[in-house]
C-alpha cells in the first residue's frame, strides 16, 4: 500500500513530462492526461478504503526517516479529498477535450494545455499529502505556477489583465507563507508538521500567535477568505470555462485544507476560533451580496464561491470534531457542485454566446438538457433538500447548535440567510437565462453570429450543437453531486472519522514519528 502513495504525485508529473514531449500529437496528449488522472482516481479510491480500514499511512520519501526526510501522509481527510479532486479533475479534463474537439483546434492546439493541467493536478495532490510544511509550500508553488499559465492561456488582453491581478496576489501570499516558514524554522528548528505540533506548544504564547496568524493570512489569501478575497471574482471569470471550473473547485479548497491542518494539528488550541468565526460570517455575507449584484453568470458564481468558503470556515472555527466533520463534508460537496455550476455556465456560454443574463433568454426551449444540468447543482448549492448542500449545511448547523455559543447561533442565522440569498441569486440567473422567452429580452439579438465574426468560435453558427462529450462530462459531475446525497451516510461517516482523527494532533504525531498508526 505504501508504494501507491508516491505514485499519486509521480504519475501526473511524469505524465506531464511525457505529454510535453508529444506536443505534435494532441490525441496522444489527451490519452496520456486522461489515463494518468484515471489511474490516480483508482489509486485514490484504493487508498481511501485502505486508510479507512487500517488507519493512516505515512511514507518517508527517499529512505530518510521522518524528521529529516520528506513525509507523505494519507489520512482519511487527505484520501477523501484526493478521490474527489481526482474525479473532478478527470471530468473537467474530459469536458475540455470535448471543447477542444468542437472548436476544431486539432491543427492549432495550445500544446501546453494538457501538460500544464497535469502539473496543476500534481500540485493539488501533493498539497493534500504533504506532511512537511516546506513540501506544502512547494506544492502550492507547483499548482500556482501551473494556474498562472492556465489563467492566461491564449494571451488575450482580458486574460492578461485578469492574470496579472491573480498572479501578483498569489505571489504576495506565497511570500508571506515562505516568511512564515522561515519564522517557524527559526523558533522550533523543524518544518515537519508532526514535529512542529509538538514543539510549537512549548513556545511562548505571543510567538505562537504571530506564527499562527501569518500562516492563516497566507492560506486565507489562497482560500479567498473575506478581506483577502477581492482578487477572486476579478480574475476567475475571464479564463476558459474548464479552467475556471477546476480553479473554483480545487484551488480555494487547497487553501481551506491547509487552514484545517493548521488549526487542527499545528495549533490545536482554540485560541483564534472566535476571529475565524467572525471572518466566516463576513465571508458568507459580503460574498453573497456581491453575487446578488452581478449580471454575468460566471462572475455571479465566483462570488458565491467566495461566500461558501465561509461555511467551511464556520466548521473549522467551531473547533469540535462534529464541526470538522461537517466542514469536511461541505468541502467535498462544494468542490463537486461549484465545479459543476461553472461547467454548466460554460455550456450556457457556448449555446447562448454570452454569460450575461441580460442578453440571454429562451434557453430552456433551445436546450432543455443544459437547463436541467444547471438547475440541479443550483438547488444543491442553494441548500434545498435532499441535495448535498442541504446535508452539509444541516451538519454544520447541528455542530453549531451543539456548540451553543452566541457566535455559533449568529453564524447559523447568517448561514441560513446566505443560503436563501444564494438560491435567490442563482434562481434569478436561471429563470432569466432559461425560463423567459427570447423575445422578452430587450433588443435581443442572437449573439452567435457576432461570435463567429470575432472568430472565437467558427462552428457554432452552422450547427449550434453542443458536443456530447461536454454535456456528458457535465452530466457526470451532476451525477457525482447527486451521489453525494445517495451515499451521504457512508460518506458522512468517513468525514466524521476524519474529523475525529484530526481533532487531536496526537494521532498524527505518533503516525509520522513512529510510522505506525493506531
Amino acid at each position, binding site marked *: 500500500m505504501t508504494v501507491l502513495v508516491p505514485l499519486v504525485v509521480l504519475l501526473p508529473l511524469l505524465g506531464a513530462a511525457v505529454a510535453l514531449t508529444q506536443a505534435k500529437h494532441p490525441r496522444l496528449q489527451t490519452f496520456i492526461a486522461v489515463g494518468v488522472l484515471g489511474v490516480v482516481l483508482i489509486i485514490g479510491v484504493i487508498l481511501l478504503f485502505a486508510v479507512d480500514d487500517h488507519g493512516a499511512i505515512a511514507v518517508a520519501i527517499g529512505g530518510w526517516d521522518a524528521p529529516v526526510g520528506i513525509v507523505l501522509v494519507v489520512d482519511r481527510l487527505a484520501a477523501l479529498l484526493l478521490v474527489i479532486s481526482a474525479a473532478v479533475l478527470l471530468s473537467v479534463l474530459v469536458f475540455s477535450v470535448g471543447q477542444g474537439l468542437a472548436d476544431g483546434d486539432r491543427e492549432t492546439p495550445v500544446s501546453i494545455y494538457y501538460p500544464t493541467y497535469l502539473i496543476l493536478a500534481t500540485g493539488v495532490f501533493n498539497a493534500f499529502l504533504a506532511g512537511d510544511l516546506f513540501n506544502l509550500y512547494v506544492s502550492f508553488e507547483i499548482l500556482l505556477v501551473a494556474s498562472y499559465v492556465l489563467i492566461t492561456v491564449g*494571451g488575450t488582453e482580458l486574460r492578461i*489583465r485578469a492574470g496579472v491581478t491573480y498572479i501578483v496576489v498569489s505571489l504576495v501570499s506565497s*511570500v508571506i507563507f515562505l516568511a512564515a*516558514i522561515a519564522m517557524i*524554522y527559526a523558533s522550533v528548528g523543524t518544518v515537519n508538521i508532526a514535529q512542529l505540533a509538538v514543539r510549537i506548544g512549548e513556545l511562548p504564547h505571543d510567538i505562537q500567535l504571530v506564527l499562527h496568524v501569518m500562516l492563516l493570512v497566507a492560506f486565507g489569501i489562497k482560500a479567498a477568505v473575506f478581506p483577502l478575497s477581492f482578487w477572486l471574482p476579478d480574475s476567475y471569470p475571464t479564463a476558459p470555462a474548464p479552467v475556471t471550473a477546476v480553479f473554483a473547485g480545487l484551488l480555494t479548497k487547497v487553501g481551506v485544507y491547509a487552514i484545517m491542518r493548521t488549526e487542527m494539528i499545528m495549533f490545536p488550541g482554540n485560541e483564534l476560533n472566535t476571529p475565524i468565526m467572525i471572518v466566516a460570517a463576513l465571508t458568507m455575507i459580503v460574498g453573497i451580496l456581491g453575487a446578488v449584484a*452581478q*449580471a454575468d453568470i460566471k462572475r455571479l458564481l465566483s462570488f458565491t464561491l467566495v461566500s461558501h468558503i465561509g461555511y467551511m470556515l464556520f466548521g473549522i472555527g467551531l473547533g469540535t470534531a462534529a464541526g470538522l466533520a461537517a466542514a469536511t463534508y461541505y468541502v467535498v460537496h462544494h468542490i463537486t457542485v461549484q465545479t459543476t455550476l461553472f461547467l454548466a455556465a460554460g455550456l450556457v456560454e457556448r449555446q447562448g454566446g454570452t454569460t450575461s443574463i*441580460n442578453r440571454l433568454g429562451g434557453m430552456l426551449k433551445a436546450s432543455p438538457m443544459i437547463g436541467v444540468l444547471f438547475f440541479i447543482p443550483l438547488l444543491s448549492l442553494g441548500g434545498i433538500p435532499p441535495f448535498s448542500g442541504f446535508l452539509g449545511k444541516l451538519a454544520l448547523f447541528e455542530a453549531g447548535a451543539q456548540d451553543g455559543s452566541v457566535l455559533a447561533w449568529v453564524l447559523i442565522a447568517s448561514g441560513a440567510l446566505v443560503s436563501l440569498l444564494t438560491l435567490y441569486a442563482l434562481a434569478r440567473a436561471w429563470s432569466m437565462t432559461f425560463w423567459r422567452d427570447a423575445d422578452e429580452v430587450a433588443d435581443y439579438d442572437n449573439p452567435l453570429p457576432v461570435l463567429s465574426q470575432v472568430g472565437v468560435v467558427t462552428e457554432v453558427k452552422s450547427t449550434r450543437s453542443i458536443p456530447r462529450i461536454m454535456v456528458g462530462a457535465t452530466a457526470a459531475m451532476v451525477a457525482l453531486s447527486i451521489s453525494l446525497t445517495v451515499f451521504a451516510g457512508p460518506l458522512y461517516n468517513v468525514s466524521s472519522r476524519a474529523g475525529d482523527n484530526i481533532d487531536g494532533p496526537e494521532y498524527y504525531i505518533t503516525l509520522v514519528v513512529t510510522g505506525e498508526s493506531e
Partner: protein
Amino acid sequence: MSVSLVLVAVMAVLYSCGVYLLLERSMTRVLLGFLLVGNATNLLILVVSGRAGAAPFYGESDPLADPLPQAFVLTSIVITFGVSAFLMALIYRSWRLAHADVVEDDTEDVAVGRRDVSVAAEPEIASDDTEFGTRATAAVSTAVDLAEQERLEEAERLEMLHRFEEQLRREVEPLDTASLDAEPLDAERLDPDHTESTDGDRP
C-alpha cells in the same frame, strides 16, 4: 543565536523597497518589487538559520552551518526565477497588446459601480448619483477607451504643432519684413539654392 546585523538591515531595506514597488501600477515595477521581496525573504531564511559555520557534510570540525535553510533558499530562488521569467513574458505580451504595462481597472467593476449592468439594463442617466459619481465615467474612459486617449494625444500633438508653427511664424515674420526692407542680396541669401555659397555668413 547570533544574528548578523548587516543582513537584517539589508533585509529590511529590501522588504520596504519591494513593498513600495509592489504597490505601483506599472507591471515592470511590480516585477522588480517581487524580486526584491523574494530576495528579502531569502535573506530572512538565512538570518534565521543561525550563525555561520563550516560546510556541512564535509569535515568533522564543528560548528557546522545548518544546511536545511540553504536548501530552502535554493528552492525558493529557483521558484522566483521561474515566476519572474513568466511575469516578464506576460509584461511583454501586455505591451504588445495594449502598449501599456500598467494594471488596468476591471471594466466590470467600474460598470457595476456605474450600475449600468443591472438586471433592468437601465440607461446611464443615473450615473452621477451612484457612489462613484461622475468619477466613474472618468475612470472608464481612462481605463478602457484607448482610442479616446489616442485622439486626445493626437489633438495635443496637433495643438503643439500649431503653437510651434505660430511661434516660428512670429519669429520669421520680422525677419521677412526686415529682409524686404534690406537689399535684395540679403533676401537671396535665404534662398536654399544659394545656401552653399553663403554658408559661412549665416548666424
